[in-house]
């Protein structure tokens, strides 16, 4: 029985390495793959998935915030909306039959794999005119880009539309126990025009708050098992640290293809399980 915990630790460790190298959050890999290959009920995998994503974001958060990369003024309004919908998502997810959730998870994961395969990213998007809401809230910033030794100043647009997106992302994250960094980052970067590094770092802030909100629903519904969640958190965090060290030494493009393929396989497997096949 403890062996299964050790297996969850090792599996999460490997996933943690791949997650960092592919530039995706741990939760989005953890839930579909662990639910496909481990004997745990999907309820506990989703609970553990939320904790995996939340713990990773929390442990990486402080240095990113001190560097001005994770931005509170950008993240807090999105988290406020997203946390409410993530609670709702968790409640809906736990009230549905497992087969339905498994089927929906399969659809979401295949969609994520497709988006990851097709979507681009922009290091320093240019926003010529900020929208009225972001101007009123003074959502803008400046950070020091080490790689080019320059200050990068940024401002945002399409804030109201982005709030709607964060509402949906929160719901999906809570329902399936996914970290939702896969969706936060493109919305910040491609829709709002936030520099990529600020998008990734602020996504962690949003994720930590949304995950903490939804995790309570899993705890009160009995869907949070320390026996599964704790080794998964430990494995993912250790793997992420190793992955970060390997980041400069491996071809991340190839790893991303592997991870997208893994997601596609896990998504199709979830779909089949959802159909009872």
């Amino acid at each position, binding site marked *: 029985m403890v062996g299964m915990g050790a297996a969850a630790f090792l599996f999460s460790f490997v996933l943690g390495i791949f997650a960092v190298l592919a530039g995706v959050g741990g939760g989005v890999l953890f839930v579909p793959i662990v639910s496909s290959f481990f004997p745990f009920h999907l309820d506990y995998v989703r609970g553990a998935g939320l904790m995996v994503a*939340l713990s990773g974001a929390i442990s990486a958060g402080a240095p990113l915030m001190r560097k001005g990369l994770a931005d509170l003024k950008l993240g807090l309004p999105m988290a406020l909306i997203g946390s409410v919908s993530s609670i709702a998502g968790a409640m809906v997810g736990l009230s549905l039959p497992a087969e339905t959730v498994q089927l929906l998870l399969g659809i979401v994961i295949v969609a994520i794999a497709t988006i990851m395969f097709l979507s681009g990213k922009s290091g320093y998007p240019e926003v010529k005119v900020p929208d009225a809401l972001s101007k009123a809230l003074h959502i803008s910033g400046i950070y020091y880009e080490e790689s080019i030794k320059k200050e990068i100043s940024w401002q945002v647009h399409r804030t109201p539309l982005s709030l709607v997106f964060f509402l949906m992302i929160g719901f999906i994250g809570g329902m399936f126990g996914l970290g939702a960094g896969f969706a936060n980052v493109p919305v910040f970067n491609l829709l709002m025009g936030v520099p990529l590094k600020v998008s990734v770092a602020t996504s962690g802030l949003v994720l930590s708050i949304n995950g903490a909100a939804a995790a309570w629903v899993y705890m009160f*519904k009995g869907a949070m098992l*320390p026996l599964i969640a704790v080794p998964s*958190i430990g494995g993912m965090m250790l793997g992420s640290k190793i992955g970060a060290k390997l980041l400069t030494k491996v071809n991340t493009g190839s790893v991303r293809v592997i991870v997208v393929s893994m997601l596609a396989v896990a998504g199709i497997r979830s779909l089949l399980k959802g159909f009872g096949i």
Partner: protein
Amino acid sequence: MNQDTLGKPPVQNEQLAYAGVLDKLSHFAMLFLGGSYAAYVFLLLPQKVSINAMAANWHLKASVMQEKLNAPVGWSFMASPESFLRGDALSYLAIIMICMIPVVCLLFTAPAFFREKRPIFGVIALLQVLILLVAATGMLVR
């Protein structure tokens, strides 16, 4: 817009307040998580529900397993010192601590927002705390 610069731009005080609390709490929570889990799986403390019983039922839906085993949920393990000083309950407490970290960080950050004359964000931070605390009471799932 990129600019050549001589020094790094200053980071806002509320960011530093959040980061300072987050740094300390995250380290403490992770240490507690590791220690409590070791006490749990190496049987250093008694358990409310044995590991074998848990493993024999983890294929069941949460509501079904809960009915069968009456494992700790929410704050139930805090009912008495006997129910609290158990391996599974302490591991569970570590998870709760991680979930409470954003609440504490925001409580420390909200006054900094007001001091820095950004009251809207102070209010947003307090509203966020309220949402997280309401979730933590469990009143939404009863």
